[in-house]
């Protein structure tokens, strides 16, 4: 399946999807050293985003978030690409600063279309997302 959206940051990546049906803050929610979601009681608690295609609703929270995304990227623990329904400035800056391919405003709701474990290809230049294999 092929979806078309808006490019937030360029670059191409593919990998296994991990889906979170809510707003995400790199600051506080993510441990940049391990790439794992570090919040107790979070639906993704203990799960790693490293090398994954991270699909979520939108960004939120502290203006320091982009710095954390950058640290995760330098540690090799950042998501390979990010897809969200509608991005806000903080998460967009995170993608740009850490140079993570990112797409939003897809023609089909990514949270309903993509499932955790699907193999997904993201083209951050054209805004095209392909679901190669469903889990």
């Amino acid at each position, binding site marked *: 399946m092929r979806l078309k959206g808006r490019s*937030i940051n360029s670059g191409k990546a593919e990998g296994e999807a991990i889906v979170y049906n809510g707003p995400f803050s790199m600051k506080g929610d993510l441990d940049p050293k391990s790439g794992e979601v570090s919040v*107790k009681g979070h639906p993704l608690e203990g799960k790693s985003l490293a090398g994954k295609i991270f699909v979520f609703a939108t960004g939120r929270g502290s*203006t320091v978030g*982009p*710095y954390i995304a950058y640290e995760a990227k330098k540690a090799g623990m950042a998501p390979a690409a990010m897809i969200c329904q509608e991005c806000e*400035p903080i998460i967009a800056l*995170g993608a740009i*600063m850490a140079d993570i391919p990112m797409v939003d405003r897809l023609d089909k709701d990514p949270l309903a279309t993509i499932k955790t474990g699907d193999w997904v290809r993201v083209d951050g230049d054209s805004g095209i997302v392909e679901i190669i294999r469903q889990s």
Partner: protein
Amino acid sequence: MHLTDEEKRMLDGDRGAGVQKAMRMIVKVGELFGAEKTVPVSSVQHIPLEPVDWLAEMVQDGPKVMTFTGTHSYYFDPKSWKAMGIADQCAREEEVAIKRHDELYRVMDIVPLYTCAPYYAGNVPRYGSYFLWGGSAGQVLCNSLLGARGDRVGGPLCLAAAITGRAPYTGVMRPENRYGQLLFEIGDDLKRYNLTYAEYGALSYCLGAIAGTKNIVFDGIPKTISQEELKYLFSPLPVSGSVVLCHVVGVTPEAATLEAALNNKKPEQKIVVGRKHLRQGWEQLHTATSRDVDLVHFGCPHCSIKEIQYIAHWLDGKKVSPNVKLWIGTSSQTRLLAQNAGLADVLEKAGAVLTNICISEASLYLKSWGINARVLALDSPRSAHYVYRVSGGSISIAYGNREMCLNAAITGKWGG
């Protein structure tokens, strides 16, 4: 997006790869969030928690900032760590880290203000001018009380604005996006007496969650409200919500009248606010699991000299309990002023420490610094919210008025 010739040259790399990266970021964010042009910024507040190798990459061609730029508060203070009781080994590591940043800031002409309230320390954007500040409490105060125009943005865009002198023209920088959307009318049960700082804070903490991203108008706030009280009214709004602009009728510059604040339109929603909102905010903020208080902190956002004066007079001749630490957060400049005014001596004799740390950031490190802190007494919703959450609930909060917090510092007990 329309770019001037100078901006095009920056984008083409004529002023080096760091400036090119910064300009790319500004253009990209502008395109994503509907800016047809950039505007010149007169004031930047840079968040100093940035990865140092990213900073080095941005300034690889040695550029100085193009507009006045100061640093936001940080979690460590090289001048007060000993008095705070931080273990030597930890302090030395922090000193090395902060020195690396400071050296780069000096090259770039970034002023080491290290405060979240730079309007008390020399960074004051003029009415109608554009600013980009990290730190959401400063964003809402500058927009609302000073009438300067700055959007809610992330840390790296502030540095990009400092390096290029430009910002994308988005959000509340545009006059059409500055009118009130949501009206909070102060109800009769709140009008009868003067609210304390902590009461203003608790009320706003409750209301910020209702407001979300909307611009607020308060009607019915006493016209005698002080600047410090306004700080407590504004600063919780972007914590429980994402508010960046809050008009107060008869007080703030774009709200001479209710009609002016609302652009002669009906608000999207009107809510009469009362004691029940205040109580709800207060109950959410007070999470203390014990009456034994380990640490009392004032200064979120950083204290003005007037606030320090009050605390010093209250403590004059008293002693902080040996089981408790009392930290007062303020800028280095205000600390100097407190020394010149003889207030620092009074505080030191009482056992209080003046420091420029951010308590919310520092709470992450307290344990590793060897500082026992299970219960913090605070009068600020911002720190009460962040410290509790960042610690995963392992640090709980006794939330109350200044006098309640000061009493706890003396007795070691909440309400004792």
